């Protein structure tokens, strides 16, 4: 029983990392209708900024907050001066642009900070708590709580605020939104800025565990995208739950399903996606797009 609980808790902890990135992807998707494949790269850049500021002697928490603010502006600037040129065109072109952006940011980080692994101090101590025969690290718990808070804030933003409504309106139908007096451009910038902020949060949560390298988020991004599709791109709660599900099921399948084992567990999220997309094309928590004729 101890092992089972441990595996579930470990899964929730890794799942939280995927969830942070997935939330940022959902935010951009909700605000612009795009999938931002550069999200992982942007998260790494934010983490490097926090690391560099911390290296200059700024206390860790302040350095992270500064990196979060800088990331907001970076995200907004990227939207305004790069992505906007492609937003209303062919979505395939935009996908290629964001993948290009990912390569560019990764290269930029490597150019400035090299590919050496950098040690990133953790916000949480390396201590553990015992619960029901399982060991929970304070860091996993901290990551978990921060992600839950982000998820709830995001859900509240979309469902309970004017800004969230405007963001959704712009994503669904920019022309109508503009006619209703919504400043489309500003909202798109805010959407990207907020996503960059979430990426920054993901980056600084992951960096202490994976050590900071330009490609740190590459594998996490694949899982985050899986979580987005599984949970439904329109639901922040959905993607977080999906990310947790992926983390937990992956762990359990590796240990308890003999033919999967630790070697095949990377296939688990993708098998899940195929099954879910077959049964529910909009994802577990996504809304079906309704078209009036």
């Amino acid at each position, binding site marked *: 029983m*101890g*092992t089972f609980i*441990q*595996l579930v808790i*470990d*899964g929730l*902890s*890794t799942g939280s990392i995927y969830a942070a990135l997935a939330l940022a992807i959902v935010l951009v*998707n909700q605000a612009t*209708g795009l*999938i931002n494949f550069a999200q992982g790269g942007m998260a790494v850049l934010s983490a490097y900024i926090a690391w560099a500021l911390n290296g200059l002697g700024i206390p860790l928490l302040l350095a992270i907050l500064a990196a979060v603010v800088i990331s907001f502006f970076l995200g907004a600037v990227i939207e305004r001066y790069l992505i906007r040129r492609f937003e209303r065109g062919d*979505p*395939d072109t935009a*996908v290629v642009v964001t993948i290009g952006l990912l390569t560019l940011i990764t*290269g930029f980080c*490597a150019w400035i900070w*090299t*590919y*050496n*692994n950098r*040690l990133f101090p953790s916000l949480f101590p*390396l201590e*553990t708590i015992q619960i029901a025969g399982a*060991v929970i690290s304070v860091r996993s718990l901290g990551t978990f709580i921060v992600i839950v808070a982000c998820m709830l804030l995001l859900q509240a933003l979309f469902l309970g605020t004017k800004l969230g409504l405007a963001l959704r309106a712009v994503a*669904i139908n920019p022309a109508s939104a503009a006619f209703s007096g919504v400043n489309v451009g500003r909202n798109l910038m805010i959407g990207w800025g907020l996503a960059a902020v979430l990426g920054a949060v993901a980056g600084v949560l992951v960096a202490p*565990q*994976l*050590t900071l*390298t*330009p*490609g*740190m988020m*590459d*594998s*996490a991004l*694949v899982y985050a*995208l*899986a979580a987005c*599709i599984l949970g439904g*791109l329109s639901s922040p709660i959905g993607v977080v739950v999906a990310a947790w599900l992926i983390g937990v099921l*992956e*762990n359990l399948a*590796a*240990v308890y399903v003999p033919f999967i*084992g*630790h*070697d095949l*567990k*990377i*296939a688990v*999220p*993708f098998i899940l*996606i*195929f099954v879910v*997309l077959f049964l529910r*094309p*909009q994802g577990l928590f*996504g809304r079906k*797009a309704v*078209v009036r004729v």
Partner: protein
Amino acid sequence: MSTNRRRMRVASVVAGIGIVAVLAAGCARGGGSPNDTDDGGAAEASPGITDDSITLGITTPLSGPTAGPGTCTVAGVTAYFGARNAEGGVEFGDGNTRTVEIEALDDEYDPQKAKANYDQLKSSVFAMTAGLGTPTNRAWLDAAIADEVPQVLIMTGDPIFSNQEESPWQLGFVPIYQNEGEAFGELLAGSAEDHKVAILSQNDDYGEGYVEGFKTAIEGADNIEVVKELTYEATDTSVDAQLTELAGSGADVFFNAMSITPLVISSLQKSQELGWLPSWFLPSNTSSPSAILEPGGAAAFPGVYTVAFAQSAAAPTFAESEEGAAFLEQLAEYANYPDVPAFPHCVWSYQIGATLEEVFGNMTEPTRENFMEALRDVSGFTAPLMLEGSTVDTTQDGLPAVSTVQVQKYNGKGYAPAESWDE
């Protein structure tokens, strides 16, 4: 309508990427059995060499997840020959003094790109050297044999490159994985106590080689029992589940045959979180004191052992030694690498530079054939920064240039030699 279609399209793109990721993980284990052993005829002067210069090619990962060690493979050898060139060049056995130029291309640890890089370089360089990676080096093994281009002193522990029948134009530099695993096994088998061993290994030639060597060495030792054995994929972001399972085995020795730096750090941390405190065996390329053991909190374990043949640049005493200081200075000056390298590959490739200089000194003709002859005739050569007892010996078929390794134990700062388990 358009939103729905866009979602479907996005979903298919994401699913497509997922499939590629899965396939990439599954196809990482490459094969290849070269059978072409044509030894070729001599030419007047081979490509890539003139009376006053020689050009060497390198294909290695300079971007992507393996770029840390990959950039090191270029930096060390560039630093070594940068310093030699500044002194006027390297003296060859044919009486000429030549400067050594390095042409390095990025393969991102992708076998296809490595092959393309080789194709691009093969007619302009004299020999290919130093490049890091088993699948990437295997990708152009057959081509190098067919083209009679030396692929030598490369950084892979795959034994195929040291087998002269299978690889006539090749030679590995670093010990084969089996050598390292065997050294651990011998140390443990010599212990006076009983031990339970848990093993976690990378699911490819690298991990299999280590485990094979280890098991060979403990065969017949009745004080050793392997109680649990698991694997992981090099693409995994976390091995927490494996550690949880292994911790439950009650093993007092943990052999972690792992090549991914961040995963080793998180393994050390996770193991402490679980309250599982065995002695550790770590491979030579993932046991850096400053980059891995310190952040992982390795001092919490009764013993962390590694095998090595070269000094660790990250050890505190390194920069104080004359050789170490010269290495760091040359690395900064000629290879644009100002940091103290966290990866051993910088030191290794510096030693490759020194070994090549030794070989060049014994070449009597500016041909690839003559180079290969001279290369296979080095014995008892002590390259700079080698640990006492390790030497370069290229004369034994089946073994790479360096095959003598020493087990070392972490002492909280750097490593000290470990002659036996119980000391």
